[in-house]
Structure formats: structure tokens, C-alpha cells
């Protein structure tokens, strides 16, 4: 396999010489406590450009009652850890989050392609060597709350199985600390939180601390943001890619922002501005959970087979400009290949750096997973200090 590990980018990690173990043939370089290996590969549903990590869930305060769950989608476009109930062992006995009147709080995770319905529960979350204690997470499709209220199911498709979610869960590590934020603390109107007494579910306000949290912000250290580091891959794609999810920005030797270009983002939406061919996309974002670069460009022919994706006659190269809310602009190069021919010519590849598709929002450039290959991309959480400034920002 021609896939290269990204280790050199992150292996400032410690070299442990475990001579005492004698006879081990394994590579003895061990990643640092703040580095979680991540992979791009077929995953449970054979999707292309899906980034996965393994996350360990523990009963509150009980480090010996834990379960490691693989193929959790790493998603910088959402906030909070959400896991399918079918993937969780009942023996974890996760504690239900209650409101001040003792009613169970149930969430409606909103995604462009549908919703995740399920209770908010408290767990200790371990990723690499980091620990978040008593973290509100969502258990998707928990049979305790089988009836989805219309206010949630009306969003679209139920993302309630491995097949529909494309993963066993979602690790939402955006630049925000809460999935909804102040809007849901002040009003029930966003439709993201419900209380569900036995009489039935109703919309509810939920305080910030009881909402789903970005797990990274709950860590006792390395908690001001993350870095996603993926290696460059061939233009023909790769069957699988190994990379790193590094916690903290400027908190350890291995996560310094250095000379990374910082893009401060809108405090409410997490957006910045992309300019391409004199077209301004004022509502742009970097999303590891999108499997392509999605932007409206009437000049690029669309595919016949892969509906909504781009199929230019030959690969096209572009230079875009990204501009943060501080007005500083910088250039980004990217390529758009013919999705139909690329996928058919490389049937064993699941990672591609040159996939793009159309976007019905002419003001939005969605920098999906192709953007991440060959880069270290930083996501600083809102309100958090880092050596490169206060979050929220993205950087690379």
C-alpha cells in the first residue's frame, strides 16, 4: 500500500523504549497522550472521504467500566458527541440528564441531511490520553424515547442507524463549545431540545451546561481546540489514510500553531469569506464531515452518475482566497477532478483530495475533507486563548 503515515508530522511524540518487555517486534514510537489516531477508509458503509476515530465512553467516575467505540465520524461541522444506542453496551449505565424539575432532556441534533433524536446522557469521555468528566453526550435512537416529536422528525431523514449515519457515532469538534448555545438557553424555539416526561415530549429551554458539549472543551488539559493532520495523498486517491487528531493548540510541544494562517470566524455561525474567480462566498466553512468541496460554480459540468458532484472534462486547478473576520486574506490552491471517472478508475480508493460538488447556496464554500489532505488544520474553540489568538478561529 502506498499510503504514508502522517507520523512525521506529529511524532514529536515520545519514543518509549520498552526494553523490559523484550521481544516485541512492534514499532516502539508511541504517539503522545494528546494524539488520537484517525483514519479515512471505507468505514461501515463504504463512503468515500469519511474521517473516523475511536472514542472510549466510561460510566461516570468509573474508569474500569468503559467501552471503546470505533468508527466515530470526526466532524468539525457539528458540536457534541453522539453515539448510536445500538453501539453502546447497556452495562455502561449512562446517567440521564434531567432538567431542574426532574424531566429527562432529549435532543434533536440538526444536520443538513437529517436529524439525530435521543436523550442527553452523562459520560466520562476518553480520547487518546485525554479525559472529559461528566460530559453531556447524545445517545441516538435510544429505545427509552421511541417517539420522535414532529418538531424534530420534520427536519428530514432519521439518522438513527449505522447505515443512515455512515458511522457508529459523530464526534462534533467544531469551534463552538455547545451544540446550540445561548439561543437554546434563552428559548425553546430553535427546536433542538425537548423534555420528555411520561406524558410526552415538549420543546424546552436548556442551560448551556446541560447542552451537548464539545468534548475537547471539557478536557482537563489541551482543551482550547484541536488539530486535524492528514498526509498528502496521490491524485488517484488512496484506499485508506492514517492521520492524527491532536488536542490543544500551543499547549504541548506537538501542537504549536507556528506560522499557520489564522482565519477568525463569525462568532454566531463559524463562517468566513472565500473568494474564487471574483465570486465572494461570505458564508464559508471548513468541515471534516463533508466528503467533498461544495461550492456553486456554474462553469464546472456536473456528473451523470454521482449526482451533485463535479465532472470536468479534465482536472481543473483553482486558487481561492480565504479571508477571516479580521480581513486578512490568504490563498488556497485546490483541484477538481472528474468524480465519475476518478471513482470508477480507482475502485479500491476511499480517500480523494480532489472531489468537489455543487452547492445550492451561492454564498457558501464548504471546504470538506479534501481540503485536509496535506495540511494541519486548527480549530480553536470560542472564547479560548491560544498562542495564535482567541477562538473561534480556524487555521492551517
Amino acid at each position, binding site marked *: 500500500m502506498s499510503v504514508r503515515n502522517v507520523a512525521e508530522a506529529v511524532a514529536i511524540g515520545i519514543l518509549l523504549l520498552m526494553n523490559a518487555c523484550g521481544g516485541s517486534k512492534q514499532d516502539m514510537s508511541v504517539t503522545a497522550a494528546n494524539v488520537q489516531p484517525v483514519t479515512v477508509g471505507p468505514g461501515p458503509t463504504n463512503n468515500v472521504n469519511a474521517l473516523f476515530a475511536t472514542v472510549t465512553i466510561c460510566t461516570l467516575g468509573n474508569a474500569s467500566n468503559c467501552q471503546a467505540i470505533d468508527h466515530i465520524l470526526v466532524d468539525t461541522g457539528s458540536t457534541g458527541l453522539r453515539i448510536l444506542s445500538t453501539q453502546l453496551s447497556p452495562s455502561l449505565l449512562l446517567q440521564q440528564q434531567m432538567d431542574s424539575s426532574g424531566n429527562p432532556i432529549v435532543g434533536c441534533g440538526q444536520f*443538513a441531511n437529517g436529524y439525530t433524536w435521543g436523550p442527553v446522557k452523562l459520560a466520562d469521555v476518553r480520547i487518546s490520553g485525554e479525559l472529559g468528566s461528566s460530559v453531556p453526550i447524545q445517545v441516538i435512537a435510544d429505545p427509552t424515547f421511541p417517539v420522535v416529536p414532529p418538531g424534530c422528525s420534520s427536519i428530514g431523514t432519521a439518522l438513527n442507524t449505522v447505515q443512515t449515519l455512515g458511522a457508529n457515532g459523530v464526534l462534533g469538534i467544531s469551534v463552538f463549545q455547545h451544540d446550540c448555545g445561548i439561543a437554546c438557553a434563552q*428559548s425553546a424555539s430553535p427546536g433542538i431540545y425537548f423534555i420528555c416526561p411520561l406524558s410526552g415530549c415538549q420543546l424546552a429551554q436548556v442551560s448551556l451546561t446541560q447542552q451537548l458539549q464539545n468534548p475537547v472543551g471539557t478536557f482537563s488539559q489541551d482543551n482550547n481546540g484541536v488539530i486535524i493532520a492528514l498526509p498528502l495523498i496521490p491524485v488517484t486517491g488512496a484506499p485508506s489514510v492514517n492521520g492524527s487528531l491532536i488536542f490543544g493548540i500551543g499547549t504541548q510541544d506537538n501542537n504549536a500553531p507556528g506560522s499557520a494562517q489564522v482565519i477568525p470566524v463569525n462568532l454566531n455561525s463559524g*463562517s468566513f469569506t472565500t473568494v474564487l474567480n471574483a465570486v465572494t462566498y461570505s458564508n464559508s466553512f471548513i468541515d471534516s464531515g463533508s466528503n467533498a468541496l461544495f461550492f456553486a460554480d456554474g462553469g464546472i459540468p456536473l456528473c451523470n452518475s454521482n449526482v451533485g458532484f463535479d465532472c470536468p472534462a479534465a482536472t481543473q486547478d483553482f486558487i481561492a482566497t480565504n479571508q477571516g473576520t479580521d480581513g486578512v486574506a490568504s490563498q488556497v490552491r485546490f483541484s477538481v477532478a472528474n468524480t465519475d471517472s476518478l471513482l470508477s478508475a480507482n475502485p479500491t480508493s476511499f480517500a480523494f483530495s480532489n472531489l468537489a460538488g455543487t452547492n445550492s447556496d451561492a454564498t457558501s464554500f464548504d471546504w470538506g475533507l479534501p481540503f485536509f489532505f496535506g495540511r494541519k488544520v486548527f480549530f480553536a474553540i470560542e472564547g479560548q486563548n491560544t498562542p495564535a489568538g482567541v477562538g473561534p478561529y480556524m487555521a492551517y
Partner: protein
Amino acid sequence: MLLASIALVMLALPICGWATLGESSVSTETDRASMNASLRILPASNYSIHEIQAPSGLTVREYVSLSGTVFAIGWQGPVMPDLRQTLGSYFDRYTASAARKHAGNRHIDVRESDLVVQSNGHMRSFSGRAYLPQLLPQGVTVEEIR
């Protein structure tokens, strides 16, 4: 750009509301009231836009032909719209098609001969549109629907 050239006729019109794709724009006052939303109507050359602003910050625009049929819906805001209401009888087709063709994908682009639904964005910033290609008034481009 489009709306900038359109005169604002009425603000917070106390009638009408959430209409449904493919049906007449006859009001559903209860829906508007339950959303506690405000409505304004913006006339364009050969259709009008019923723009609904919900307290959540969500904006839904319904594109109504001169004969009174809703031929398109556009949305933008920090939360997703009630697509069951706005897509009406097309909602079940949309969800079935989205689940079948786009399982695991964040970006929805359902294109059938008589129904297009496109949904984009991320938590705290969503946008999308739905339209009935066969009912688009002559001269109306898809780009106008937003």
C-alpha cells in the same frame, strides 16, 4: 442581489403564512402563529416571494407563481426548517430519496424530474432550496431561489 431590486410591499403582514410546495399559497395562519413568525411579501416580475422570519433566526422564502402556486422554497438560518410542512406531499419522497442516495453524506442533492431538494450547511448555519422544475415560471432561473 435579486431582493435588492425588489420593492418591499408589506412588513409583518398579519395574514397568510407557511405554505406548501406545489399547493396554493392559501394561508395557514395557525402555522405562522405557532412559529410566532413575521411575514412579508416581495413581488418579483413573474412571481412573488413570501418571506417568513422565525424567532430562531431562520428565514424561509416561498416562491409563489402568478396563479398562486408555491413552486419553490428557499431557507437560510441557524436551524433547519420544518420540511414536512414546506414540502408537503413531497416530504416523504424527499426523505426516502435522501436516505437512499445520500446515506452518510452531509450534503443533499436530490434531483428528480419533478422535484429538486438541495440542503447544505452545518450546525448553526444551514441553507437550502426545493423546487418543482415543471412549475418554474418561464424565465425564472434556479439561482433566484435561495
